[in-house]
């Protein structure tokens, strides 16, 4: 392929135009894996230096890495993979980004337009396969459409309720040529992410806020995505209302603040779930009432007036009917409420009695555990991780018990520090998302909390970590079980532990070493804190800490599927 330097006509190949579009969009880092259909693009990437490329070891890793990058920064994540298996391997990550509203753009190669539909080598209907799990997708069928499609893709992915956008590019389009002009603006008549918030619902909400006696603010991931953490915190502090976060919302309100009543839901705190059940006003902010939050729908906050603020109108009254629906940008909505309450210095009712009740529930200390002298409790590792990192680390997580313990015990004081797979619950997310997080925050400490089952789903990315010198600290809570599966089998299947035992585990220390990293096995409670301190001191190296933990520990509290918030199993 010829490169057109100093090109007076401004004529370039599709592949060159594609790379120029990324540059124009301010993208300087992408994650990917080459293959036949994208070779022209890889050649164009090779010939320039503005956009760098991280080579993963599996396309699922590329998408999770892009998610980690996006979730821990203010930039979208970008992925480039080939057609066929390249595209299908990226589906888990795309579905994950869809569930958790992560702004990523995934570019997939496609066979030549003349071959589409002919069952060509490495052909799949990528647009068809990804349709149910993207915010939107495109196929480019003309080189002249590359620039405006790339522009639209980033616009759709990053505005409104963010989400993944897939752009499928047939190989011949990347070798055709045309003039390069990157559009300055984009407007789509069928897509208007800016929503004017209605005044009447704001007034109704103000009235409810000023007259309630038992309020709860239930804040989700939308507070973080909508960059509204500090606005919400100020507003909640003024009102003196209790705040609970969803799994996705952690860090959106300071975890060590006295008004924070911890995470809610299936494995949420006693005080958060009891407050949800007994409240008379529920202010849902950027949250979507998912089934792990609501439990039994007909017993959900039975006496509450529900205010629901969300940028996605289809999230409102989907599972739980909202009495006061506020559709619009979360930051905008909170500021509008603040203007009518805080600026006018209006006073809410005295809620001391409500706080007394909440403080009684708090005394149950529902995340407590007993650390003895011999076996390491998994919670103890996370308590120590919080202590030695002073709550300042970026924590990525895989999926399972370790994820819940991390969510319960690590107090996140800042948004975008807790990176996990909430909606999809995709094991394998932890390590690659830590890579993206580390690349977005090169001077910060990034820890991946995982388990011996989850880590094996994307273990190949240890190789990527070596190639790019990513000094991630892997905190492997090794209980030799798929812990969450085992917990459900213990509770609901009469202890028939079908396939939940991880037999024939690798020696993780040697495995880490064979990938060129440092590995330690920790078996005694007294070694936990020193091991963490030593690992963090290794500023330039990935350290894999294999903590051998109690096999039978369970996550409490727990609300069984289909139960009400006040029906928690506490131990």
């Amino acid at each position, binding site marked *: 392929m010829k490169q057109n330097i100093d090109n007076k006509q401004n004529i370039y190949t599709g592949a060159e135009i594609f790379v120029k579009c990324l540059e124009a969009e301010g993208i300087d880092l992408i994650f990917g894996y080459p293959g036949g259909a994208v070779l022209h693009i890889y050649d164009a990437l090779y010939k320039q230096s503005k956009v760098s490329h991280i080579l993963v070891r599996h396309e699922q890793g590329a998408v999770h890495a892009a998610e980690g990058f996006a979730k821990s920064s203010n930039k979208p994540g970008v992925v480039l993979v080939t057609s066929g298996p390249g595209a299908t391997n990226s589906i888990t990550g795309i579905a994950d980004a869809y569930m958790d509203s992560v702004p990523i753009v995934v570019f997939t190669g496609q066979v030549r337009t003349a071959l589409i539909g002919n069952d060509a080598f490495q052909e799949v209907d990528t*647009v*068809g396969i990804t*349709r*149910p799990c993207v*915010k*939107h*997708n495109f*196929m480019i069928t003309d080189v002249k459409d590359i620039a405006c499609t790339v522009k639209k893709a980033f616009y*759709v992915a990053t505005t409104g309720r963010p989400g993944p956008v897939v752009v499928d590019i047939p190989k011949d389009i990347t070798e055709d040529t045309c003039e390069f002009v990157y559009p300055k603006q984009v407007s*789509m*008549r*069928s*897509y208007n992410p800016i929503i004017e918030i209605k005044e009447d619902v704001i007034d109704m909400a103000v009235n409810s806020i000023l007259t309630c006696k038992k309020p709860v603010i239930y804040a989700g991931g939308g507070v973080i995505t909508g960059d509204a953490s500090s606005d919400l915190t100020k507003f909640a502090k003024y009102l003196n209302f209790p705040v609970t976060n969803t799994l996705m919302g952690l860090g959106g309100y300071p975890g060590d603040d006295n008004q924070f009543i911890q995470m809610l839901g299936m494995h949420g705190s006693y005080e958060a779930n009891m407050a949800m059940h007994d409240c008379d006003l529920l202010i849902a902010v950027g949250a979507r009432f998912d089934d792990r939050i609501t439990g039994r729908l007909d017993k959900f906050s039975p006496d509450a007036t529900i205010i629901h603020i969300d940028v*996605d*109108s*289809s999230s409102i*009254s*989907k599972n739980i*009917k909202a009495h006061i629906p506020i559709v619009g940008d979360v930051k905008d909505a909170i500021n509008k409420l603040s203007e009518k309450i805080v600026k006018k210095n209006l006073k809410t009712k005295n809620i001391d009695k409500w706080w007394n009740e909440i403080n009684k529930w708090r005394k149950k200390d529902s995340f407590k555990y007993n650390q003895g002298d011999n076996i390491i409790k998994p919670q103890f590792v996370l308590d120590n991780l919080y202590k030695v990192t002073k709550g300042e680390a970026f924590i990525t997580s895989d999926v399972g018990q370790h994820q819940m313990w991390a969510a319960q015990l690590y107090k996140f004081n800042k948004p975008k520090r807790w990176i996990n797979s909430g909606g999809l619950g995709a094991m394998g997310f932890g390590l690659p998302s830590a890579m993206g997080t580390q690349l977005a925050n090169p001077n910060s400490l990034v820890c991946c909390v995982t388990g011996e089952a989850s880590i094996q789903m994307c273990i190949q990315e240890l190789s990527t970590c070596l190639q790019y010198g990513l000094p991630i600290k892997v905190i492997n809570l090794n209980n030799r079980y798929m812990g969450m599966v085992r917990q459900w089998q213990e509770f609901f299947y009469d202890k028939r532990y079908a396939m939940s035992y991880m037999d024939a585990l690798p020696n993780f220390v040697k495995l880490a070493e064979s990938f060129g990293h440092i590995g330690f096995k920790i078996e005694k409670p007294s070694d936990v804190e020193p091991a963490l301190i030593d690992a963090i001191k290794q500023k330039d190296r990935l350290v894999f800490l294999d903590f051998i933990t109690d096999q039978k520990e369970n996550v409490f509290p727990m609300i069984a599927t289909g139960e009400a918030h006040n029906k928690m199993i506490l131990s």
Partner: protein
Amino acid sequence: MRHIISVLLENESGALSRVAGLFSARSFNIESLSVAPSEDVTASRMTIVTSGNDAIIEQIVKQLDKLVDVIEVSEITSDEHVEREIAFVKIEDKSINKKMMSEFSKNEFLKIHKTKNNEIIIECVDSPEKINIFLDSVKKIAVKIVRSGTVGINSN
């Protein structure tokens, strides 16, 4: 409750699949669906007949509206509107007596087409209820029934 939802969407490849996929993915009912060009050459209009309680219909409208290709969504059955459907019924000549034939000919909503194979095709354009009544009256002698699905427009 039966509802008609009218959707104006970009004339992009795959737009129909997005709508059909949304209905199957979220377990919404589709009783009929028709799609054709609109007054705007770059947009198509889709008419979907569906059923569900108010909460389901609210979700259907919101989810459709959320699709990036969808320009406009309206539920037209809750207000004054006109709706029509077309049905073709093929009947063998030998199944029809003179009295029936003269009734068909007198009905202003019906048109009769003759085929080369000793059959007639009755074309019926009417509201879905009337079409149902007509089809009930001929279903014993019909060889084939083809229905278009409903289209509708608000009339206030």
